[in-house]
């Protein structure tokens, strides 16, 4: 582990920008969100979390797979500049377990995701505080960890300094060149931030969700909890672990491209079959699927939760559907 001043850290990022596109949180019109950085002094380090997760940089909302023109297929242009994403919170970095399992570990490998994943350096940052909507500790995530991603950092606002640690071999190589100050007070600093996370509630408390939901697949409460839901895609598009997509051809049949776009299980067309039959005819079934996919199916097949407790679906839902209430209803 190393310790550097803020100026040194900014200079370090500036140096990296020669090889990488630096993506970091900055203040926009709506709130704090990731963007490609041109002015390094504008990067924000002491926020709780960004408006949207970084998933769109590894899994773009709309991605061209290939183009075709008069019978000739050309591969989509690859982005040649590597990415360097700074300030990823521990909830968000854990969402990659879901992506990696589905897109890389299972055959066939999704080469489009893998390519972006392999060409991105991920810098995780210890979270300075929890919001009232944070519940990452439910999923055994330590908000103050710096052990995930390629590089982990902890920003101490009081001293304006960064503790920085290389985790992967690529990360270690990058951090290697930095000079350092004494880092023996790291644990002490980490301890100091712990009290800011008291709001972060463990909702699951080691309960076996697979067993619980197994017996509640047809529970009548499913008919109650979704009632205010209007069926928009806000929760799924904001969710760092939602990875569903739809593939379509755009353009004319002799001249166009094949594109994949984010899809949402909240939309009626998501499960509509060619015959016109829809096995999830109402919002109740659609909402149940979303909850079970996060807390039952993925847990059963992959032993990972499909939720990381970032709270974005709660903050952005126009009708205040609260996934924490739904967990509480069933366990």
């Amino acid at each position, binding site marked *: 582990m190393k310790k550097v001043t803020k100026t040194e850290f900014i200079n370090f990022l500036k140096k990296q920008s020669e090889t990488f596109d630096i993506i970091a949180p900055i203040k926009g019109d709506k709130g704090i969100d990731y963007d490609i950085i041109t002015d390094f002094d504008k990067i924000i380090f002491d926020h709780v979390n960004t408006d949207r997760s970084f998933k769109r940089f590894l899994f773009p909302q709309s991605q061209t797979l290939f183009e075709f023109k008069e019978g000739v297929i050309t591969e989509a242009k690859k982005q040649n500049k590597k990415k360097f994403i700074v300030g990823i919170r521990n909830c968000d970095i854990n969402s990659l377990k879901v992506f990696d399992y589905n897109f890389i570990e299972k055959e066939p490998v999704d080469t489009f995701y893998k390519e972006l994943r392999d060409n991105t350096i991920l810098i995780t940052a210890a979270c300075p505080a929890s919001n*009232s909507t944070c519940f990452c500790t439910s999923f055994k995530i330590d908000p103050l960890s710096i052990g995930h991603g390629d590089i982990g950092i902890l920003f101490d606002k009081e001293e304006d300094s960064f503790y920085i640690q290389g985790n992967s071999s690529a990360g270690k190589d990058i951090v290697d060149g930095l000079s350092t100050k004494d880092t023996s007070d790291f644990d002490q600093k980490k301890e100091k931030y712990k009290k800011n996370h008291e709001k972060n509630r463990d909702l699951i408390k080691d309960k076996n969700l697979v067993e619980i939901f197994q017996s509640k697949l047809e529970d009548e409460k499913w008919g109650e909890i979704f009632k*205010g839901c209007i069926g*928009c895609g*806000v929760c799924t598009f904001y969710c760092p672990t939602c990875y569903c997509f739809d593939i*379509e051809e755009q353009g004319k049949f002799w001249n166009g491209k094949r594109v994949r*776009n984010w899809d949402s299980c909240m939309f009626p067309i998501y499960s509509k079959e060619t015959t016109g039959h829809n096995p999830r005819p109402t919002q109740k079934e659609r909402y149940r699927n979303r909850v079970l996919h996060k807390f039952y199916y993925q847990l059963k097949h992959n032993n990972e939760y499909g939720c990381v407790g970032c709270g974005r679906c709660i903050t952005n839902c126009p*009708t*205040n559907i609260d996934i924490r209430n739904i967990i509480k209803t069933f366990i």
Partner: protein
Amino acid sequence: MEVKIKERLSQLFDEQKINCAIIFEKGTMPDKNAPNIIYNKEGLNNLVWNSMNWNNLANYLPKLLGKKIGIVAKGCDSRSIVLLMQEEKVKREDLYIIGINCTGMIDMKKIAKDFGAEISETIFEKDSVKVKGKASEKEYKVKDFLLESCQVCKYPSPVIYDEVLGEQVKGFEGDNYQDITEFEKLSSEERREYFYKELSGCIRCYACRNSCPSCYCQECFVDSNQPKWLEKGQNIDDIFFYHIVRAYHMVGRCVDCGSCQNACPMDINILKLTKKLNKDVRELYKYECGLDPKNTPALSTFEPDDYNEFIK
């Protein structure tokens, strides 16, 4: 107000005049209330009435077709009810409307920005809200932080109701489409630039569509793939196309409740499109939608002696 609404709905459940009710419940967050449908009077326990109830409750009516419904309706909700009655999506005799003289809804996003810290509690007084955070506290006047649509609301009192609660409220008396008149003065390039910039943030979650009571189609044109009307991706022209067509489907059917804009998670100003069309309908057809159930919506009627040739 809350006590009165609870009392009345409870009686209505007892008298079996309604078998469900659309209400607002206290939300799980201090800056949000939750619209919900309840089926018995126990459901009334969490009922709340304050200035965060911006959702248009008429949105849930088409899904409850055939039930006896109690609904708490602000001015805009009641106008949507009129529209849904005109379009035969709900029957007047199935409804018991508790009208509320609305004093305007507050823009919590704007307040959150001004407050600067996480809001841990909101306490509503008659015309103000006290916002509490971890280390600070601030009081806001509701009328200084009204939602855009509420600032120029001409019909805060319900236009149709079985009973009405609250003191009579005076509607906005100026020109509610003043901003559109200003916007019309811009050149077409400037206007296009405005929309391209504004809509570039759209993530196509369709919260605007789904929070709109007038958008009740079983299958929306964006969800249709046979025929496919538009592409699904993030191309700005597709996004613009979606918003324009959505607005066109609203001609003479939009009640200016602002739900679409308030639901938008990306804070996009989408009211300009619908407001422009509302203004045109008012000027061309002397018609404002959702005021009288006996009227026929502007684009659903024609006169045999219409001056246009194509209609004959």
